[in-house]
C-alpha cells in the first residue's frame, strides 16, 4: 500500500515538472509586420504578383486602396484558357470587394476537366480554388479521389500541402479523413533543428504553406491538428526567424502562415515581450508587458497573471498570483511589493482562451534603485598608533576642505556605507573603486574598496607598501570614489578630498615616462639564416685531389703485387655478375644525384637479385675449380 502511494506521487510529481514548455524565440515585431506589408504592397507587374499582393494583404487584414484599378488590371491580364491564370484572377478578385470575373461555360468546363487523376496536384488545387472562388459547383468526392491518387503518385511535400489546401475548399460531407491524416505524416517529415526550429528541408516557404494549409483544413473539418504545443512554437520560430523575404511568394507564404496562426480554432501562439527594458524603479514602478499574437495584434481576451516572482540571488518569493491590469498594455505595479534592488525571475501565465499556446513565460526583471553614501570618514592613522587618528566626515557631494597628508609613517584610511536611498538597506554594488589622480603628472592609480561582514566599506592606503604603484612620485593626489552597478540608477563619481603623499625622494624617477602601450613598437628585422661560409674553391679542389690520390697508390701497389685478370672465365654468369655489380655502383651514383630511397630500393632489388644469382653461380664455379685444383 505505501510503496504504491509513493510511486503514484512520484508519477504526479514528474508530470508536474515536465510542463516546462517552449516559448517563441523569434517573432515578428511591429516593424517586421510593416515591412511585410510594404513588400506585399509593391506595384504588381503581372497577374501572379497581383494575386500574391492582393491575397497576401487581405490575410494581413489590409485591403488594397484602389480596388477598381486592380480589378481592371486582373481582368485585362486574365487568360481564360489557362487554369493558372484563372486561379490567380479568381482568388484575387474574391479578396477585392465588388470585383467580378466573367465566367463562360468554356471556362467552367476547362476547370472541371482539370479535376482528374491526370493533372498534377498543383493543377487540381488551382482549378478547385478557382471553381470555389468563382462560386461554381464542383463534385467534392471526385476531387478527393483525384487528390488521393495524386498524393500517392507525387510523394513530395509541396504536392501534399496543395492537396491539404484543396481539401479545405471542399464540402464538409466529403470523405476528407485520409487527406486529414496527411497532416500528421507531413509533420513527421519536419526537421528538428536543435529543439528550437522545425522546418522542411524544402525551405521556409514550404513550412509556412504547410502551417496555413494544415490549419485551414483543420478549421474546415473542426478537428484539432496533430501538432503538439512545442511543435507549434518551433514552427513559429522557423517561419518568423527571417525578417526580410527574397521573393513575393515567400512573403505571401509568411503572411498566410501568420494569419492562420493568429486566427484559427485550435492553437494561437502568444508572444509576450516587455515594453522597453524589463526594469522597474521608484520613478518607473510599473512593469509593462505586451501580449500579442504572431501578427503583433493585442489579444483582447487575455488576462495576465504573475504566478510567482522570486529574487534570483536569494530565491525568496516576493509575489504570488498577482494580476496584471490592462491599460492599453498589461501593467503591474511591482514597486508596491517593495522589492530590494536586484534581479527577479517572473513566471507569467496568460489565460483567457483555451487556444493559447506558449502561455507560460519566464521573464527576468531588474529592480533599480538610487544609492546614497553615508558616514564617509577619512582619517590619517599613524603606523605605530602613537597618535590617535583624526577623522574627518565628508558629506556627499561636497569635497573635504583640508587636504590630508600621509607619508611613509602613516596610513590613509577611508570608511563609508552604501545604502539604498529610499529604504536605507545596505547595498554592495559591483564597482566600488577609489581613484587617486595626480593632476600634475597625469598619473592615476585605482584601488578597490572592500566591504567587511557588516557591509561597511573600508579602504586603507599604506604609503610605504604601495609606493610601486605610484612610482614613488610625491605630490597632491585627488581622491575620487566611483560607485557603479547594473541595478543603480545613479552611478557616482565623487571627488572626496585631496591627499598629499610623500614618498622617500631617492626612489623617484627623474622624468615620468608615460606608459606608452599603444605606440608602434620597433620593427623586428628578420635575420635570415646566413649560409655557412664555404672555404675557397682552390682549397676544396686541392683536398679533393688529395683524398682521391690513395686510389692511385692502390693501383700501383696492386700492379706491383702482380694482380691480374688471367683467371677471368668468360662464362655468362661471370659477365652478368660484373655487369650487375657495375650497374649497382652506377645506381649508387644516380641515387646520389637524382633519386630518393624508395626508388633506389626498387631498382636495387631488381639489379641486386640478378647480380646475386649470377654471382652465386660464378662463385660456385670458382669454388669447384678451387677444390678440384686442391685435390
Amino acid at each position, binding site marked *: 500500500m505505501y510503496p504504491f502511494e509513493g510511486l503514484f506521487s512520484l508519477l504526479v510529481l514528474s508530470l508536474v515538472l515536465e510542463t516546462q514548455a517552449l516559448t517563441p524565440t523569434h517573432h515578428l515585431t511591429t516593424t517586421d509586420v510593416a515591412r511585410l506589408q510594404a513588400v506585399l504592397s509593391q506595384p504588381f507587374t503581372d497577374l501572379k504578383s497581383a494575386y500574391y499582393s492582393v491575397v497576401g494583404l487581405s490575410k494581413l487584414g489590409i485591403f488594397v486602396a484602389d480596388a477598381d484599378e486592380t480589378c481592371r488590371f486582373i481582368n485585362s491580364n486574365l487568360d481564360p484558357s489557362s487554369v493558372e491564370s484563372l486561379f490567380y484572377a479568381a482568388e484575387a478578385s474574391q479578396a477585392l470587394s465588388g470585383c467580378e470575373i466573367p465566367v463562360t461555360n468554356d471556362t467552367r468546363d476547362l476547370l472541371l476537366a482539370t479535376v482528374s487523376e491526370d493533372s498534377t496536384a498543383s493543377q487540381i488545387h488551382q482549378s478547385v480554388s478557382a471553381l470555389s472562388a468563382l462560386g461554381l459547383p464542383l463534385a467534392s468526392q471526385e476531387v478527393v479521389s483525384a487528390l488521393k491518387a495524386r498524393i500517392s503518385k507525387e510523394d513530395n511535400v509541396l504536392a501534399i500541402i496543395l492537396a491539404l489546401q484543396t481539401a479545405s475548399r471542399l464540402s464538409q460531407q466529403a470523405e476528407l479523413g485520409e487527406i486529414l491524416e496527411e497532416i500528421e505524416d507531413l509533420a513527421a517529415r519536419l526537421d528538428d533543428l536543435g529543439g528550437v526550429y522545425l522546418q522542411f528541408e524544402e525551405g521556409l516557404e514550404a513550412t509556412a504553406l504547410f502551417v496555413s494549409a494544415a490549419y485551414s483544413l483543420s478549421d474546415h473539418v473542426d478537428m484539432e491538428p496533430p501538432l503538439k504545443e512545442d511543435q507549434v512554437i518551433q514552427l513559429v520560430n522557423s517561419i518568423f526567424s527571417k525578417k526580410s523575404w527574397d521573393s513575393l511568394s515567400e512573403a505571401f507564404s509568411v503572411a498566410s502562415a501568420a494569419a492562420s496562426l493568429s486566427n484559427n480554432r485550435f492553437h494561437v501562439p502568444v508572444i509576450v515581450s516587455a515594453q522597453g527594458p524589463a526594469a522597474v524603479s521608484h520613478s518607473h514602478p510599473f512593469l509593462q508587458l505586451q501580449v500579442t499574437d504572431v501578427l503583433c495584434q493585442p489579444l483582447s481576451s487575455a488576462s495576465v497573471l504573475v504566478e510567482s516572482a522570486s529574487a534570483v540571488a536569494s530565491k525568496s518569493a516576493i509575489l504570488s498570483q498577482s494580476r496584471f491590469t490592462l491599460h492599453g498594455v498589461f501593467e503591474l505595479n511591482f514597486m508596491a511589493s517593495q522589492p530590494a534592488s536586484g534581479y527577479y525571475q517572473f513566471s507569467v501565465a496568460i489565460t483567457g482562451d483555451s487556444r493559447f499556446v506558449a502561455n507560460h513565460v519566464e521573464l527576468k526583471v531588474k529592480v533599480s534603485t538610487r544609492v546614497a553614501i553615508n558616514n564617509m570618514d577619512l582619517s590619517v592613522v599613524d603606523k605605530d598608533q602613537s597618535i590617535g587618528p583624526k577623522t574627518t566626515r565628508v558629506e556627499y557631494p561636497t569635497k573635504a576642505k583640508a587636504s590630508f597628508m600621509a607619508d611613509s609613517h602613516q596610513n590613509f584610511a577611508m570608511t563609508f556605507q552604501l545604502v539604498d536611498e529610499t529604504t536605507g538597506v545596505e547595498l554592495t554594488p559591483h564597482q566600488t573603486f577609489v581613484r587617486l589622480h595626480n593632476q600634475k603628472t597625469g598619473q592615476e592609480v585605482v584601488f578597490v574598496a572592500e566591504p567587511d561582514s557588516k557591509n561597511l566599506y573600508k579602504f586603507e592606503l599604506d604609503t610605504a607598501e604601495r609606493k610601486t604603484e605610484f612610482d614613488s612620485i610625491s605630490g597632491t593626489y585627488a581622491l575620487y570614489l566611483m560607485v557603479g552597478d547594473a541595478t543603480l540608477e545613479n552611478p557616482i563619481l565623487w571627488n572626496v578630498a585631496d591627499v598629499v603623499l610623500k614618498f622617500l625622494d631617492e626612489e623617484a624617477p627623474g622624468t615620468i615616462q608615460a606608459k606608452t602601450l599603444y605606440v608602434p613598437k620597433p620593427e623586428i628585422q628578420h635575420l635570415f639564416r646566413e649560409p655557412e661560409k664555404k672555404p675557397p674553391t682552390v682549397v676544396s679542389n686541392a683536398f679533393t685531389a688529395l683524398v682521391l*690520390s690513395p686510389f692511385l697508390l*692502390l693501383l700501383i*701497389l696492386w700492379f706491383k*703485387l702482380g694482380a691480374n685478370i688471367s683467371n677471368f672465365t668468360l662464362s655468362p654468369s661471370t659477365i652478368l655478375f660484373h655487369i650487375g655489380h657495375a650497374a649497382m655502383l652506377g645506381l649508387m651514383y644516380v641515387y646520389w644525384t637524382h633519386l630518393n630511397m624508395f626508388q633506389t630500393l626498387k631498382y*636495387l632489388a631488381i639489379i641486386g637479385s640478378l647480380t646475386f644469382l649470377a654471382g652465386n653461380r660464378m*662463385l660456385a664455379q670458382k669454388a669447384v675449380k*678451387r677444390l678440384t685444383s686442391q685435390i
Partner: protein
Amino acid sequence: MSNSVFSVISRFVEEYRSSTPNKLKMIDAYLLYILLTGVFQFLYCVLVGTFPFNSFLSGFISCVGSFILAVCLRIQINPQNKRDFLTVSPERAFADFLFAHTVLHLVVVNFVG
C-alpha cells in the same frame, strides 16, 4: 732502445714479405688505401672546417666501414684461420663482403646529401 724497436720492425717486415700469401697482400694494399682516404678526410675537417658536416660524417663512416669489412674478409680468407671458419668458404666470405658493402653504400649515399 730504438735499436731494438728498429730491429723488431725490420724483422716484422721481412716476415710479412715472405710468409704472407699474395691474396692477403692485395687486401692489405686495399686496407692501406682505405686508411689513407679516411685520414685525408679527417685532415680536411681539422684544417678547413666541418662545413657540410653530414658529408664529412658519411665519407668518414664509409672509410671506417669499408676498412672493417675488408678486415673481416681478410680474416675469413686467411688459410691459417680455416679451422675457425669451417662453414665459410672464401667465396662465401667474398659474397658477404659484397652484400655488406651494398648496404653500407646505400646508407652512405643517403647521408652524404
